[in-house]
């Protein structure tokens, strides 16, 4: 087995002959100058590989990167003296660049232009001003860059501007919504507001609170989650890990259909089935049933996507250890995906926590604290907002804004928790 031994001792052909490459030769300056010397044509075999990453360099600094042949030894010694990379500006790698502050200057300029145009033409909508400024900015940026830096850079700038514009268009309404809610809600939110119900408070009176609604929302969401999460998780596990053939296709189809159910329809469904046909009364639980119908498809979808992301290799690795399939799912697949699943579930919860329509139909609404979700009318935060808005008095408006703020904060906390869990549970690769 002499063949064996040879391969063991020499891991690669580049070790053969010639001194090892000096460490300071980085790939960038170790490029090959084609017309360097008589070695040029011998290097041709190496050149395509090397020149892919190499930058043309000054002939003095050029040296063949890898010369496998023994005949090059003298040349190696001659080239061991390595000067730091010199990049003469004449080599055509550089292009004229606009100064760093150009976009800022352009932005200020186009804004001024838009204001001027707006004032002269008597446009009173600030939105129009902003649109003019944005258009002028994009056009000027494109033209200037095209003139100075070239077409590709100009298109790059154009795409960048479009992305930023889309970002602003997406974020502005959100920011203004949050701003409005916070500004109007904050004055009314207080400890009292959170810990009192509307018992005995008339619509034009100050005071009162959302305790009954907050409690009811938490209960209804918790009940809906208790119903929807297990069913949703198990459905997703079935679809990804077991489901084959027509049953799986049918389930997928119905999950898709459920995703599109309008919330009022879910409410009507529970109303006819639970309250009218089965003759249970209005209750938080009836609301929770409708919410769980809305939540289930979201949980299924999110979980399905996450389970599909778990590499098949992990399942096979566990199966090959002689682990039964159900344990593989429980101990390997679900833990690997748990971060994403948690995020999906939390988002589903956040999505139903603000649901109003089915609640309106099913929990009836109440100003009193009813801590039993299974019996008697309850309230809920979205319903509270809706009711207060309907009263139409200043005091009721304030309460509506404050309740909306509490609802947003609640959902935001859920999202933050979801992110925290996702990060905490994410598969770890750290060293």
């Amino acid at each position, binding site marked *: 087995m002499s063949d064996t031994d040879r391969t063991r001792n020499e891991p690669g052909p580049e070790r053969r002959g010639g001194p090892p490459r000096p460490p300071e030769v980085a790939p960038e300056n170790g490029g090959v100058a084609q017309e360097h010397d008589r070695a040029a044509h011998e290097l041709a075999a190496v050149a395509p590989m090397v020149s892919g990453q190499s930058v043309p360099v000054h002939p003095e600094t050029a040296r063949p990167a890898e010369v496998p042949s023994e005949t090059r030894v003298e040349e190696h010694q001659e080239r061991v003296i390595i000067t730091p990379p010199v990049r003469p500006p004449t080599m055509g790698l550089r292009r004229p660049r606009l100064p760093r502050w150009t976009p800022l200057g352009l932005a200020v300029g186009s804004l001024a232009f838009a204001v001027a145009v707006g004032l002269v033409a008597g446009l009173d909508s600030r939105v129009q001003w902003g649109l003019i400024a944005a258009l002028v900015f994009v056009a000027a940026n494109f033209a200037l860059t095209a003139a100075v830096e070239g077409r590709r850079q100009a298109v790059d700038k154009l795409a960048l501007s479009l992305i930023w514009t889309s970002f602003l268009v997406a974020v502005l309404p959100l920011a203004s919504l949050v701003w409005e809610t916070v500004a109007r809600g904050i004055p009314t939110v207080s400890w009292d507001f959170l810990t009192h119900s509307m018992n005995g408070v008339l619509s034009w009176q100050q005071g009162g609170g959302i305790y009954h609604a907050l409690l009811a929302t938490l209960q209804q969401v918790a009940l809906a989650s208790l119903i929807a999460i297990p069913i949703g998780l198990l459905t997703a596990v079935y679809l990804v890990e077991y489901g084959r053939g027509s049953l799986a296709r049918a389930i997928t189809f119905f999950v898709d259909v459920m995703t599109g159910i309008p919330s009022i329809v879910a409410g009507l469904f529970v109303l006819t089935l639970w309250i009218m046909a089965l003759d249970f009364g209005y209750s938080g639980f009836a609301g929770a049933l409708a919410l769980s119908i809305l939540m289930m498809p979201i949980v299924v979808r999110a979980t399905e996507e996450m389970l599909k992301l778990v590499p098949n290799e992990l399942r096979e*690795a566990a199966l090959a*250890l*002689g682990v039964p399939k159900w344990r593989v799912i429980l101990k*390997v697949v679900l833990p690997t995906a748990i971060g994403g699943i948690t995020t999906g579930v939390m988002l589903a919860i956040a999505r139903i926590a603000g649901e109003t329509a089915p609640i309106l139909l099913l929990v009836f609404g109440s100003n009193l604290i009813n801590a039993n979700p299974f019996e008697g009318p309850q309230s809920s935060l979205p319903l509270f907002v809706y009711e207060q808005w309907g009263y139409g008095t200043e005091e009721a408006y304030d309460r509506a804004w404050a309740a909306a703020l509490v609802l947003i904060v609640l959902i935001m906390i859920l999202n933050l928790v979801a992110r925290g869990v996702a990060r905490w549970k994410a598969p*770890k690769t750290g060293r």
Partner: protein
Amino acid sequence: MAKRIDVNGLNAYYGGHKAIEDITLHVEPRSVTAFIGPSGCGKSTFLRTLNRMHEVTPGGRVEGEVLLDNENLYGPGVDPVQVRRTVGMVFQRPNPFPTMSIYDNVLAGVRLNGIRYSRSQLDDLVEKNLRGANLWKEVKDRLHKPGAGLSGGQQQRLCLARATAVEPDVLLMDEPCSALDPISTLAIEDLIDQMKSRYTIVIVTHNMQQAARVSERTAFFNLAGVGQPGRLIEVDATDKIFSNPSEKATEDYISGRFG
């Protein structure tokens, strides 16, 4: 306790596609057998029929018999889970469980099977198998760090330790070194050399030098054409296969004339 493997007239299918046809092969206990052959000739498929992993693939189906010490793996009433505990497997890409530490990865098979051990027994098991995989010295100070933080070669040795921790009788390896650098490859090869006294080892490799280095017997697989099932062309002592094969196709493949 290593076991012998006798394969008789084995066909394997993916749905309607026949991937390997009529394979008959005998593997001695405590030996290393290498499978070589061009890509797509069914080496992996065949290897996976040896621990009933083939049927995990949707549509995977097997005909014929695989005898493990004269017990047919495909006989009635045989539990595939039990088969896989007896016949372990190492995959091409290192695949430690990303949610588990190095320690838990080694114990994955034991833990996931719900066997209860005392703390010190578990510690011993981890140390023994990591030592067996030549990994103990490198990781003994970070046993509770994630297994995914190791280098590729270390991860593959971790997978070996994980496979040996359930104490299989046979170890199947599907191109275990093809994702590794030469140094890690040598480490794995040395390991195979040490382990063959305890296990029956079957290794698929694309690297002919590797087959020559580690195996006593070599089986050459080939397929007649695209879409045709793969077949076993010849199996013989490795020396013979590489110096004086009886089939023309084997010689062509080994001398690099095709494949």
